[in-house]
């Protein structure tokens, strides 16, 4: 009797216990607590996160921009009128007068790149729980390669401000920037060496290369050629000119198109076609410089091109009329952004690759090849029939010519600050000068102010940085 009557209740108990334990625990605890939440979890979600060109490229209507502006602001390609100074934000004023040690908060040159990195990290962490199959492999790879590229690009841009100039002799010992590599906000962030930062950048880009297509359908998306171009730029910054040459060539092998400036309508307010329409054949990867806090100095309306630099353009050099127009009451203002608008293009383009190639060749003594490369570029820049090809007797002359043209070609592309840091490390002894209301300000070569301090609000979270 006892045994028989125990069957039912025991069955019930076993059933309940089986039911309690048979639920898939992970799925049960991973259920979204609210249906209104969009929790990114598919490859389409990840691609859409990366296609957020407002945050990943700084593009859009009235964008905030992306790449740091504080370096360009402290560079020597421009000046502002005395009366414009007072309209600037305090951080801009300080950067302009080389008081770059000024510690402030809510620094967009820091915040936006790290916001971009957060997106890449969400995608990269998310991919770990997605499965790569033969059906989705190209989509999966493209997403992974793109996220690695975006993140490396931002680490590179941040290092130009917040890490000291790269110098192999001390790169292992000096502190770089925090490398945020995971999505979780509880990640323990530490600052490693400058060498560590550049190693991470080059390694990640190299990881991305095989994952990406040669070129991208849209200018906001990364590609193999963008990886080569960014690697070339990175190695140049590291004074590793052989490697820089190698990757510039790899990029130019895929695409070497140049705009013939003779075909541009230079009288337009903005002579270059907007990146949105993908008509600019030189653009490899589009992004723009931060444009806030308003008003920012390095924009056409406020900045005047350095008068010596302006006069160094030959009268038949079409860049003179394409890049600049007369400003009121005096001086010349910039209008030649590859973004095709008032925002400064800081992305990757073939003209920069020609200049890297020419520089690297000159540095290894290949004078003829170097000058030929430079002439190919300049041919497309001068008025038809007026260009007299340059010539150089030795490598140093060739290098000087290339560096002169580099400054003239890559005006307001966010590269001058890095060049100043790089060249001064090599002994070029460039001192920057500003004149404001009759007072002189200067920034001697290799000054500690070439490295911006970590923003005050960030420091508040990390007393050990």
């Amino acid at each position, binding site marked *: 009797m006892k045994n028989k009557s125990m069957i039912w209740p025991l069955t019930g108990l076993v059933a309940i216990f089986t039911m309690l334990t048979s639920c898939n625990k992970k799925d049960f605890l991973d259920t979204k607590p609210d249906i209104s939440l969009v929790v990114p979890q598919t490859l389409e979600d990840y691609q*859409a996160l990366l296609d957020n060109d407002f945050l990943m490229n700084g593009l859009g209507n009235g964008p905030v921009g992306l790449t740091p502006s504080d370096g360009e602001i402290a560079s020597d390609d421009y000046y502002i009128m005395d009366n414009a100074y007072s309209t600037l934000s305090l951080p801009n004023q300080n950067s302009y007068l080389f008081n770059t040690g000024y510690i402030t908060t809510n620094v967009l040159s820091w*915040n936006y790149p790290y916001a971009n990195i957060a997106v890449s990290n969400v995608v990269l962490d998310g991919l770990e729980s997605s499965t790569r199959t033969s059906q989705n492999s190209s989509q999966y790879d493209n997403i992974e390669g793109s996220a690695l590229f975006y993140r490396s690009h931002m680490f590179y841009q941040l290092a130009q401000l917040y890490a000291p100039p790269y110098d192999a002799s001390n790169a292992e010992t000096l502190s770089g920037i925090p490398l945020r590599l995971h999505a979780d906000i*509880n990640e323990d962030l530490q600052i490693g060496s400058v060498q560590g930062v550049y190693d991470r950048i080059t390694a990640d880009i190299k990881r991305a290369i095989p994952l990406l297509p040669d070129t991208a359908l849209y200018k906001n998306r990364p590609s193999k050629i963008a990886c080569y171009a960014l690697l070339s730029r990175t190695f140049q910054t590291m004074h590793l000119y052989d490697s820089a040459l190698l990757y510039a060539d790899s990029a130019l092998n895929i695409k070497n198109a140049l705009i013939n400036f003779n075909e541009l309508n230079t009288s337009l307010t903005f002579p270059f076609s907007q990146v949105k329409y993908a008509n600019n054949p030189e653009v490899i990867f589009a992004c723009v410089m931060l444009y806030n806090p308003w008003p920012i100095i390095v924009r056409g309306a406020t900045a005047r091109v350095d008068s010596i630099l302006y006069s160094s353009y030959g009268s038949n050099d079409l860049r003179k009329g394409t890049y600049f127009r007369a400003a009121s009451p005096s001086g010349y203002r910039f209008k030649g952004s590859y973004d095709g608008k008032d925002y400064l293009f800081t992305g990757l383009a073939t003209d920069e690759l020609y200049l890297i190639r020419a520089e690297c060749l000159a540095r290894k003594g290949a004078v003829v090849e170097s000058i030929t490369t430079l002439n190919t570029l300049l041919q497309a820049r001068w008025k038809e029939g007026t260009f007299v090809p340059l010539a150089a007797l030795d490598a140093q002359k060739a290098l000087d010519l290339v560096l002169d043209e580099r400054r003239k070609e890559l005006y307001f592309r966010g590269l001058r600050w890095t060049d100043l840091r790089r060249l001064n490390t090599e002994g070029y002894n460039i001192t920057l000068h500003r004149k404001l209301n009759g007072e002189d300000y200067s920034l001697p070569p290799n000054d500690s102010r070439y490295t911006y301090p970590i923003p005050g609000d*960030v420091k508040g979270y990390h007393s050990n940085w």
Partner: protein
Amino acid sequence: MTIRYIFLFLLALSCTRMLAQDTAGVPRKPDTGYLVSQVGQLEEVVVSDGYGYRRKLYSAGATDHIDSALLSRSVSMNITGRLENLTPGLLFNHGDAASTDAFLIRGRSTIYANAQPLIVLDNFPYDGDISNINPNDIESVDVLKDASATSIWGARAANGVIVLTTKKGRGRTPQVSVHSTVQLQGRPDLFNVPSVSPSDRVTLDSILFEKGKYDNALGSPYNGPANPVAEILWQYKNGEVSNTLMRSALDSFRRYDVRNDISRYLYRPSLFTQQAISINGGDKDYNYNFSFGWDRQLPSLEGQQNNRITVRYQNNVHLLDWLHLQGGVMYVQNESLQGHNEGYNLGQISLRGLYPYARLKNDQGSNVPLYLSYRKGYIDTAGNGLLKDWNYIPLDDITEEEHRQELSDFTANAGLELAPWKNFTLSARYQYERQVGTGTDLYKEGSYYARNLINNFSNVNIASGSVTYGIPPGAIQDNNDTYTESHQGRFQVDYTNAWEGGLHRVNAMAGYEIRDRKVGGKAFRYYGYDPEYGTIATNIDYTSQYPRYASPSSSSSIDALQSATQQTDHFLSSFGSVDYTFHDYLVLNGSIRKDEANLFGVSTNQKGSPFWSVGTGWILSKTPFCQIPWLPFLKLRLSYGYNGNISRLASAYTTASYGNAWIGPLKSATLQSPPNANLKWEKVGMLNAGLDFSILGSRISGSVDAYKKNASGVMGSVQLDPTLGYSVISTGFYGNVASMKGNGIDIKINTVNIQGVFSWQSLFNFSYTSTKVTDYLMPESSNGYNYLASTAIIPVKGKPLFSVYGYKWAGLDPQTGMPRGWLNGEPSEDYTSIYQVPLDSMTYKGPVQPTVYGALMNSFAWNGWTLSFNISYKFGGYFRTASMNNIGMLNYWSGHSDYAKRWQKPGDEAHTHVPVFEYDLTSSAKDDFYKNADVLVQKSDMIRWEDLNIAYQWPLKVKRRMSSLKIFVYLSNIGLLWKANDMGIDPYYNGVPKEKMACAFGLDFKF
């Protein structure tokens, strides 16, 4: 999965029924849950924590047991209302403080999370609306206060736990209980709302008319509206009425007070009836309880009614001495209906408010319109008669809207207890609940709401005499459907043993629990609805912009009002507890619980530390070497442990929103919130030290508890390190960033003052609670005015969460009557600068909620008669009172009665703080300062006579059964005995109508 659950439930029920018949002759296990506490017999009380029963004597926790005698003493539709003033540490807020926390145990220890105690019905948390529970079904209530008592409930128990134990079947013969109550309450007192007198307002409106304040409104029929004083003066000015007629009109306005009309036509005496019947019985192996309840409420607002029907059936079978089954169902149908009746708020939400001399019926007794949005002249001519009638007649409109809320709740539970081995009991329990709510807001075709909306979206072609409708004519109905569905299952092992003749006794328990709860709903609107045939207009254009008929320069689209929501809670929990008793006088309690939930981050679920508690009790009076003759009972208690609180504000998940990219045809997604793998519950640690005693031959007994609370990881809005990448998306995210501290004392004392044929007992409760925010990782605002909303959540370090601040008051200027504050140590009238002073330059008055509260209940009994009354007290809270708003009186038609007390001539400042009234439309800074000045902040300290209960009980014998008949009269809300403020304000009714005393008659019949 649902089907599996239901199958299981049916199985359990059918077992119960089937086996109930052939299992006679097996002795029944004692049901310890029914013991009733009696004054002076603390040791007999049995406390339920939802996982089992425990004799209070052998518990180290701070708990309070409220038995059915106390619960049935008061009259209310809801169980929570009956707990008020009965136990220390449980605070019910009224008046302004009610909007902070309706009720809470031992003070608030969370900022943004729900602070309401966890409600457990028998074995499982109750997920439905607490007002579904019929108080007559509740046998007893246990209020669990400290960590030792509550931490078995883990992540949801930091606010304390209220365990409701339902009535179970008992006895051998069926017993029928009938309960019937009727409660009546007079109309609320509308004159408690401080309103400017009609005469003052008529005078003021005449002056404002002279100053040209109404010229704009009167100049064009489109602008407007204008109040009746302005209208009549305008007609007089235009020569349309004579001087005599104008004067007599103004004089008649002075004699009306709309509060009379509102009270008479919008309010009524309220009626509440409660009928309950229950049958319980069984034999020694089987028992059941069936109950039925019908509650009906006609609240004081015309057009409102509430009905509730509850049916409950619960049965238990002791199949064998080692097998016990139980199953039950509960069904509740709750319906409430309201018309369009704003009560004393009538017209307040309209453009200019309601003038105090308004009338709702004219001298002939017909309902009259109010011209609050459009002038009469406009309404009479608009659309050339082609539009719907545009008059708003408040008394007609009451029945033109029907706001109906229907709620049905079904709960089923099944349980199985097995004792296959000695000392062990295995049990499995399951509960299913589904609550479905159907809300409809019907605006009939004749309602002002529908007519006004239809007119505004109409386009009239006067030439052709045709109208095109944006919103088709007909009724409008908003539908709001909600549901809650939950499954809760538990598997539990209990172990009981004793050694050496009871020298060591152990009760241990461990188990595993699963919980799945979904809450969702959808809302949608019908336009052009015909309630009779159920037809709905479908061809509505929700995208086009329509010019509004009454203000053609602005346009808007038709609101579709559609939404759908669903929230899911998934919990997996494991738990265990051990009680050890040594020699019957030393008690050790320990418990541990681990919760995993889809609301927490991944690493919290994987690695999060469990909740735990330890407690010890020492019964000195049973200890051989500690006997104190005059102290027949003394027990010391000490406990410490942790509990959690859950907030839905924070997300552990990465969330994003979709949009379009700028380049190409690409879809773009933007991150909204970061992933937070460490997101966890708020953690509240509590230390409790207490003692229970009885002296003088148990004539005086009671308990004293002191506690300290320490809440960490409290959810707060924070700014993140910009390096994490989210500072460009939002300035604040919810995370575990704040800390709070609290401490307090709970005292409960029972005394038997007179014993014998005539007896007199007292029950005294005292509570002290103080909590404050100790840490909050958010920059404080530099402007004090951000902290003035005392019932909003704006944490300040070192202060209670809800605090009242005010500008320092420097009195009225004796020459001008202007209010003065302090600026840089000097009295100042620079209101704009004063308004912006930092918080530390303002006066901190104190917390909104009282810090000291309690009650004293006295009961007398003589020969079947009992009389008891409860007096409550509250101290330490503050509230802000309203006063005259200068610019408000110029721009609106209503006003505060303090207008009569305003400064008018030098010397007045000696007896008033109401500033001078001036015709200044330029700045509200003076009013902003004055209304937030500390002089308007009052203490809410008070002593109230809560209630009085007189009952007589006849002992009866019907067919040899024990029977009884009891009748009672119960008066509640009797009134204030004392209050701290000298402004004549009852803090329970600050600026709102004052509730009258309620009077109930009832009978209880058992046979």
